[in-house]
């Protein structure tokens, strides 16, 4: 398992593969909700390993346990006791991961009473940085995040794409080496989305962090990732890991290249199979309900 992570690792990892442990490693991670009669197994037997500096995308049908997995990696939810999470080779007991990982949840969760600037500095303030210093630090990022001139605006004055960029900036300003992004572009229109993807790669290449990125969109998963992981329908587990050897930096033309098409063909079958299962599962449940 871990050998695969190292082989496919990002450029930073490749040269020192033998000494650097995986940045993040999950071993037999499970999450079950509720007790027996109506127990939900959200995540089952997940093993994965991500090298430092790697960009990994995670794709799977709705409700398969992706957000639950993220909550566990961020330390918000303890994994069931049969598995473990390791950060740079160190096992992490319950709660130990809080404050160590930059986590961007599925909703932007901007605070309506804070300006854009003060939303961006939220994590810095929590860490105890003075307001003045935190603002100065955030202000320097505004051009890069395409938000110049909006520092003093309130979130309700922004478009969806801009709100998402503020949430991303808040995540980036919480300077942790591992970043979890839960469907950051899920709510955006196709055009904005494509733009944001290229922009995110650009930022990632400059800031060099390890990224784990959830998406529903196969094109997005392939375009962004060093590695695409496919999750099965619930109970979610890693079904397949596909290494994306497309050269970087990538631009829009990559999407129409034959290599991309070939990878997409392979993944599409796998992803659709799981989506169909989810669909069948929910139909079964509905049938059972109507029968009783």
């Amino acid at each position, binding site marked *: 398992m871990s050998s695969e992570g190292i082989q496919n690792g990002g450029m930073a990892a490749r040269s020192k593969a033998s000494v650097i442990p995986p940045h993040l490693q999950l071993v037999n991670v499970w999450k079950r909700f509720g007790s027996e009669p109506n127990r939900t197994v959200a995540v089952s037997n997940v093993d994965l390993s991500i090298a430092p500096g790697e960009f990994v995308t995670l794709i799977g049908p709705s409700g398969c346990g992706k957000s639950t997995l993220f909550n566990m990696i*961020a330390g918000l939810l303890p994994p069931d006791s049969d598995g473990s999470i390791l950060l740079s080779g160190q096992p992490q007991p319950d709660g130990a991961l809080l404050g160590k990982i930059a986590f961007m949840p*599925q909703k932007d*969760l901007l*605070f*309506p009473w804070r300006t854009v600037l003060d939303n961006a500095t*939220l*994590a810095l303030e*929590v860490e105890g940085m003075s307001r003045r210093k935190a603002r100065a630090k955030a202000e320097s990022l505004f051009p890069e995040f395409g938000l110049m001139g909006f520092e003093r605006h*309130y979130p309700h004055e922004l478009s969806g794409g801009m709100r998402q960029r503020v949430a991303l900036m808040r995540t980036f300003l919480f300077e942790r080496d591992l970043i979890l992004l839960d469907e950051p572009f899920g709510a955006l229109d196709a055009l904005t989305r494509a733009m944001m993807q290229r922009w995110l790669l650009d930022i990632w290449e400059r800031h060099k962090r390890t990224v784990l990125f959830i998406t529903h969109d196969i094109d997005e998963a392939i375009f962004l990732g060093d590695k695409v992981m496919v999750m099965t329908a619930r109970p979610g587990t890693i079904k397949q890991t596909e290494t994306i050897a497309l050269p970087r930096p990538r631009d829009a033309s990559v999407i129409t290249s034959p290599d991309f098409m070939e990878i997409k063909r392979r993944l599409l079958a796998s992803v659709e199979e799981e989506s169909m299962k989810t669909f069948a599962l929910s139909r079964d449940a509905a049938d059972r309900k109507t029968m009783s």
Partner: protein
Amino acid sequence: MAIRLNGLRTALPVGLALAGLLLAWEAAVRLFGVPAFVLPGPSGILVTIAEKSNILSAGLLVTLTEVAGGFAIGTFIGVALAIVLVLVPPLELMAIPLVIAINSVPSVAFVPLVLLWFGLGMASKIALAAFAVAIVVLLNTLQGLKRPESEAINLLRSFGASRFGILFRLRLPAAMPFLVTGLRVGLARSTIVVIVAEMMGGYGGLGQVIYQATAMMDSLTVWAGVVVASMASLGLYGLLVALDRKLVWWR
């Protein structure tokens, strides 16, 4: 400019309606020769307010002091209790049914008891006002403090925030609109309970002025007292609206 114009646009019809009402009232009283002890006209009330301005303003001062003192103490207690309850959930489970039970009894019902405990001076009125305000502020603030969705709380936790960090950066700001609603209801309730308590037993205040005038069948002074009391609570309400804009600036 636009806001002023808007304000004018809403104030104008209200002002006109009020003026019309007062005129009709005055005309009816004069036309039908209604005696003053049944219903005095607005002009008569105004004249009385001017004549009795000494005792009215002394009473107003006492009432306002009691309301303001009770309001400040009650707000502090209500907010503090709400914070404690949200930080210690088991305590909330125990306390809330009790608070809701107390809240369903009009605070006026407690007046005789409180007069007995705190005497006929200002202390009893301040205690009653504080009590009335604390209960509503507690219930509203608690609701507001519990408002943030778990995702937002988790976001702060993921940054390593403590309970207090979550309280100050998320729960309290989110509770502001609820607190303001609590203050508004609390203000109305505390004004009522203070005036009623003054009527039931006290040395001063508008309630006492109204009570004594009633005893002497001086209906003009009763009306003057009622009008001054209404004006005072209208003024306090205006202050709260301004406070609302300060505390909930993002809406």
